[in-house]
């Protein structure tokens, strides 16, 4: 009895030791992934809800506003103006006034000028009263509106960027409402992104299903040879394939000149810098991701099942729909989910082959990072995209298993 117990114990101990050794082998990669993948993604999430620029830049003002805590439709008392004057002087000394002004301008267009005007003049005046000074700089300071915006930014952690990413905003009265009409663009972009991803996924199923079916029913040698035709474009650089589609589809391009030479058309067709070009190129690029999982599932479906159905009296159509098709579902599902996930994040191809109304969410993330310099909004848009992708990935992992993510 005693020796059995100790043997079990020793075995268990050995197993635990083995586990620790395995974890030790995985640890270097995991630390590396944490540093160059998980923490960067974490920074995106952090930047989408945390922005201490204004509370850090105007600390006295924020304290004074909190101490006063009056209703939103009133102008704050003199101490708040005095605190703002002091903060402004320090901000100017640290050359941070421009950044704060930009941040206010993001919340309410036009505040940049108002804020900068006060910042430029504040050095000239030693002492208060400050309320008349600000009113002289710009009458807006004597209105409650601008103070509402500043109060909305009181806390460094907030949901303002997410509201903005969903075409909403916190108004100066502190209530949440829609963005002004001309700035309500993001929901359209999400819907467009979903639309393009759906279209591309559908096209991939449409083209990929017959292809996989044929490949699965050919002799192994022929199938392997034809598979090269799927794999070669797969391993060709994404930029090369996008370039190739540009060459093929542009106005003076290969397809238009071919069609004109055949007298099928008299005027070149607009095939690129529009939705058509984006969908065609993305379908081309993502098709292998659909074909490979479908093919590997279809190859394992025994032919005898359909034969049995036929011999039991099912017509070819019934046998296909009721016996063959249900067995393909795992492959179609895996391929479609993967294509959809990958399509959601596409940037390069739409940016090069699409027009201004064909850009997807990634484009606007990059645009807000680079051109508009609204990093918070870029982060919120990216966080929503990331959330959607991870959710679908969790579904994929449950249905297919991430270790089955086979490419090539």
């Amino acid at each position, binding site marked *: 009895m005693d020796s059995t117990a100790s043997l079990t114990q020793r075995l268990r101990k050995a197993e635990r030791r083995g*586990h620790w050794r*395995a*974890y*030790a*082998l*995985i640890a270097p*990669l*995991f630390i*590396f*992934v944490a540093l*160059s*993948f*998980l*923490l*960067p*993604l974490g*920074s*995106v999430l952090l930047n989408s809800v945390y922005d201490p620029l204004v509370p850090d830049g105007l600390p006295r003002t924020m304290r004074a506003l909190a101490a006063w805590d009056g209703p939103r439709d009133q102008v704050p008392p003199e101490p708040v103006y005095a605190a703002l004057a002091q903060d402004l002087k320090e901000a100017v000394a640290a050359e941070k006034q421009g950044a704060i002004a930009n941040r206010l301008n993001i919340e309410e267009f036009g505040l940049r000028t108002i804020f900068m005007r006060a910042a430029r003049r504040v050095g000239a005046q030693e002492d208060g009263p400050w309320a008349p000074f600000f009113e002289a700089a710009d009458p807006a300071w004597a209105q409650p509106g601008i103070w509402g915006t500043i109060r909305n930014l009181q806390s460094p952690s907030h949901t303002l960027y997410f509201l903005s990413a969903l075409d909403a905003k916190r108004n100066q009265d502190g209530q949440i409402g829609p963005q002004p009409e001309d700035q309500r663009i993001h929901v359209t972009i999400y819907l467009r992104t979903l639309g393009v991803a759906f279209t591309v996924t559908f096209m991939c199923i449409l083209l990929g299903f*017959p292809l996989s*079916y*044929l490949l699965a029913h*050919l002799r192994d040698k022929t199938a392997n040879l034809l598979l090269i*035709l799927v794999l070669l*474009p797969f*391993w*060709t*650089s994404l*930029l*090369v*394939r996008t*370039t*190739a*589609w540009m*060459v*093929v589809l*542009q106005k*003076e391009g*290969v397809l238009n*000149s071919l069609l004109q030479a055949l007298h099928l058309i008299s005027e070149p067709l607009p095939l690129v810098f529009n939705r058509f070009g984006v969908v065609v190129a993305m379908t*081309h690029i993502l*098709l292998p991701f659909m074909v490979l999982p479908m093919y590997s599932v279809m190859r394992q479906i025994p032919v005898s099942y359909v034969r049995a159905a036929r011999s039991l009296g099912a017509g070819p159509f019934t046998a296909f729909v009721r016996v063959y098709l249900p067995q393909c579902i795992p492959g179609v599902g895996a391929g479609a989910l993967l294509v959809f*996930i*990958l399509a959601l*994040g596409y*940037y*390069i191809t739409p940016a090069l082959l699409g027009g201004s109304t064909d850009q997807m969410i*990634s484009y606007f*993330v*990059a645009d807000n990072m680079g051109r508009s310099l609204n*990093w918070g909004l870029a*982060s919120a848009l*990216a966080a929503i*995209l*990331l959330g959607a*992708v991870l959710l679908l990935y969790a579904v*994929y*992992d449950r249905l297919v298993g*991430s270790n089955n*993510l086979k*490419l090539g």
Partner: protein
Amino acid sequence: MSASSLPLYTTPAQRLGHWLLVLFCTAVFIFLIAPVLVVVPLAFNNEPYFHFPVQVYSLRWFRELFTNEVWLHAIFNSVLTATLATLLATTLGTLAAVGLNHHNLPGKRLLMAVLVSPMIVPVVVLAVGAYFFFSKLGIANNLLGIVLVHAVLGMPFVVITVTATLGGFDMNLMRAARGLGASQIEAFRRIMLPLVWPGVLSGALFAFATSFDEVVVVLFLGGPEQTTLPRQMWTGLREQLSPTILSAAFMLILFAVVMLLTLEMLRRRSVAMRGVVE
């Protein structure tokens, strides 16, 4: 693709269906391969035009590609970045795959899901995050940042191919080596590694190709010095489609062909070495 493979008892309707399928698939194959092939003759066009027929063939744009400072610098940067990223991804990825191969490892599924996720996370999101995070560490706008993110993007391929190869590896060989007095490291180096190297090498190739083709991360994390081949192509494509881009594209297609052939060779090698009959 011949009708002779159809059984004798097929009805005419089925025959028609079969031929329609073959016709449709031929069209899809053309759709898949034609755009890639179209680039090839145009890259050798003496004139800076992009339509057929090509009048005079020449190596003019290849000369441009391989003599122009800017392009040469870009090629050099790409090779350097991809090599460093591949080394990092392959070393860490192979070690981790050996660990993940341990039977009944608790949390294996979750670990695998995390390690594979760089493949599906939109690269723009990762690039933005890396820019934020690396700026704090002071490694944005230089080569190191790009290499780190590229290694992350290539690592899943290494983990997947090596775990797949290890799946067919007989762990008794390791036990035998250990029993005969080899140390853990020696057994790994002299027994396991020689048997799984085709998997390691395929993973490394995937990782190299991933980095070699990547542009978004370079756009976000690259300083003015880090022009890589894809970035140079991207800049060119946004401004004006130049013939030099097509010659670069041709080189990349060639690279893809070599890669495909090597992978196929490695796959056969791996199968033969493990004695698996497919």
